[in-house]
């Protein structure tokens, strides 16, 4: 498995989620640039299907990053996003796939330190768990 880059996909809302990522980059914080970010208008737009499709198409781990609950730009979007993540986790458990491959995070756009922490947590997890079904990709 040497040299294989972990495949992590992050769905970030265009408000606090993406702003947190941009701020951390601007503040000179370092994070694994191989993480693939998908900007969504709101984490309430993230469907279970998007997460499953990412896993199906080769992601090792997927995270969803939205606004802090009760401080969501669209009021309840990040609550919806968390519900979708929880539902997918349940589906993964039912099919015997590690549910921790999918995670929800919330951040304020002013949290420059949080985004790198999320990325390193998910990248470490992806390294630990490896690709779904073992090394083929």
């Amino acid at each position, binding site marked *: 498995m040497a040299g294989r880059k972990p495949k992590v996909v992050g769905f970030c809302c265009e408000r606090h989620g993406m702003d947190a990522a941009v701020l951390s980059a601007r503040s000179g914080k370092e994070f694994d640039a191989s993480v693939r970010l998908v900007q969504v208008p709101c984490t309430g737009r993230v469907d279970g299907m998007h997460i499953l499709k990412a896993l199906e198409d080769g992601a090792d781990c997927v995270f969803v990053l939205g606004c802090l609950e009760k401080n969501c730009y669209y009021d309840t979007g990040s609550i919806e996003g968390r519900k979708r993540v929880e539902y997918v986790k349940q589906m*993964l458990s039912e099919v*015997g796939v590690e549910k921790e491959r999918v995670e929800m995070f919330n951040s304020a756009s002013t949290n420059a330190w949080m985004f790198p922490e999320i990325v390193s947590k998910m990248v470490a997890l992806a390294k630990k768990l490896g690709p779904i079904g073992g090394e083929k990709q």
Partner: protein
Amino acid sequence: MIVAKRKPLNEIAEMVAPYKRVSVIGCRSCVAICLAGGEKEVKMLVSALKVKNKKEGRDQEFEALVVERQCEKEWVKEVEDKVLGSDITLSMACSLGAQTIGDMYPSHVTFPGLNTGIFGVPEEQGVWSEKCVGCGNCIIHTTGGICPISRCAKSMLNGPCGGSANRKCEVNLDTDCAWSAIYDRLKIQNRLELIEKVTPAKDWSTSHAGGRRTYVREDAKLTPHQKKGKEAIQ
């Protein structure tokens, strides 16, 4: 509407495991509304099964399909090629849809992906509750519009029973006592005298106990001549 629930994914995966090409067919009617077997649920199910297969190294092909109403042959006919081109069909409709496919293609194996549960209504987003069991002889005009057959744990016709307390059912304290609800409803309708009326034993011959029931409307049936004409068009 008919309310159903997806079977646990491991159960579904085990059912379809011996087959290589699996057609998964949802329905855009009741089961789409109750978020069990509409287009999205079918796609998510297929995706989850593919992730499982990836993990276990199993080679299987899935085709995700959805029809307008799976309990009607005309709609199923639209996906006939896909059904017959697969080794097995997993129906994500209620059991009526699964049985329609099964009856249309008897030599083709069709499995249910859902557990069909209740005749129910959406009470709030994500919550459905049972309101009828199809007894075939509706009496809710005498019970304030509330069905005691489905909503009372004992299907009592003259309630409440002695266990009703604080508007809750003794069988399950999380459930409202149907007869308490009937009392309240009749009271606001000024029809409380009905609660004192003794209702005799119900004629259950219209219910399901006598085997499969069939409803026929003679004037809607096609004559042999009309049937011939219809077949010629198809």
